[in-house]
């Protein structure tokens, strides 16, 4: 287990799951735009974290959401996929002089472009997995693709708003989040 995983992240886990289940569940745009904000928990974890631990966390997170959504396995599968791809995406997006030890996923310190590229890529992959696992068939592929794009946009925007509201400019994050 990584030492940078602490009480703060456990609190975040419950906050994001509660936000997803209690609020975002009933917030659907035009019957097509869904917001799966709970993935923010995985995205906002420390940059350096053991891969196996990350996968396990993703499974627990997805499974919890699945229990509320009655979609056994769908969100868990998509979250595990996201957790597997996260280190690779982080590698791809490495700044010119590498990550610093104090770097966290923060729109202020890492810059808007880095944050948007990181968030939207991973969220897009996650949502693609969720919606195609949900339908299984490719018969309604166009509808599914529209759903994926709109939902990615929705989730991404909410994530940026959360960052701007609750994450500080300083290197260290505020404690109450």
């Amino acid at each position: 287990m990584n030492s940078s995983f602490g009480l703060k992240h456990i609190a975040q886990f419950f906050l994001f799951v509660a936000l997803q289940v209690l609020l975002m569940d009933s917030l659907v745009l035009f019957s097509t735009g869904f917001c799966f904000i709970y993935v923010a928990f995985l995205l906002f974890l420390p940059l350096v974290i053991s891969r196996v631990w990350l996968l396990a966390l993703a499974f627990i997170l997805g499974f919890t959401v699945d229990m509320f959504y009655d979609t056994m396995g769908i969100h868990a599968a998509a979250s595990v996929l996201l957790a597997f791809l996260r280190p690779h995406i982080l590698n791809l997006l490495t700044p010119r002089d590498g990550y610093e030890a104090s770097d966290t996923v923060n729109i202020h310190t890492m810059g808007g472009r880095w944050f948007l590229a990181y968030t939207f890529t991973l969220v897009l992959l996650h949502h693609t997995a969720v919606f195609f696992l949900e339908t299984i068939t490719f018969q309604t592929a166009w509808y599914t693709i529209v759903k994926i794009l709109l939902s990615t946009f929705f989730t991404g925007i909410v994530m940026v708003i959360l960052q701007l509201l609750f994450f500080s400019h300083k290197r260290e994050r505020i404690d109450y989040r």
Partner: protein
Amino acid sequence: MRNLFAFIYRFRAFLVFVLLEALCVYLLVRYNTYQGAAFFNSANKYVGQVLEFQSGITDYFRLTSINQTLAKENANLRQELMRQRLLALADSTASLDSTYYAATDSSQANPYLLHAGRVINNSVRRMNNYLTIAAGTADGVKPGMGVVSPQGVVGRVKTVSENYATVTSLLHSQMLISAKIRASDTFGTIKWTGGDYRTVLLDYIPLHIKPVKGDTIVTSGFNTVFPEGIMVGTISSIEQEPDKSFYTIKVKLAVDFAQLSYVYVVENTKEEERETLEQNAGIITDEQ
């Protein structure tokens, strides 16, 4: 051997990933056909408590509409009761000499019990929608029972815990319901194809029937889940495609799934008898 362990250790992340994905797919496939006790879904005790807490708050915002539905239902029931009383007054069969009295069909003698349940979780916009109701084994709810609302058919119980149950909504890609056109008694199958939660498809109506827009669709009663004659909806459009031997009929649902507040779980007291009989006879039905 050491090399093998070194290899496993080197690719541990990938191996864990594959294992977890396989587990997810297994859960996904198994859950689709699963019916029984609730473990890891919204009928689970703790999940149910959270959902009940949530609906306890949100229900306040639609108390007026909930009250209106209940009052309307009460009015309908009172009307029905008055009609029954009048009929009973006019009917003297029961007091006739027993030699002339022929007992009616035994299946008509009220084989259905209703258990009320409050809807605490509901979805209409996913591909596979489920409801969670605050009624479980303690209230007599069992997996496989039908669920109806005052307006019509809602779905079928999937899993139950002590105090909660999940219901496969009619708005589920694998839910099939045996229904008939009331005017002509022709039966077909109701299914939902996704998208709009107000319309469903009525399949297998042969071309020699002449259905009319506005015709009422009710349950057929050909199985043990729903009683005969429960409202499903009305025909909203009829199409005859050139290469098909059945009509493509769209049905406007009678139930507004987005507004569900209270539902009734239908218990068929003769279910077991009828199912064993049908199974022994080799009749297997896949629709509800």
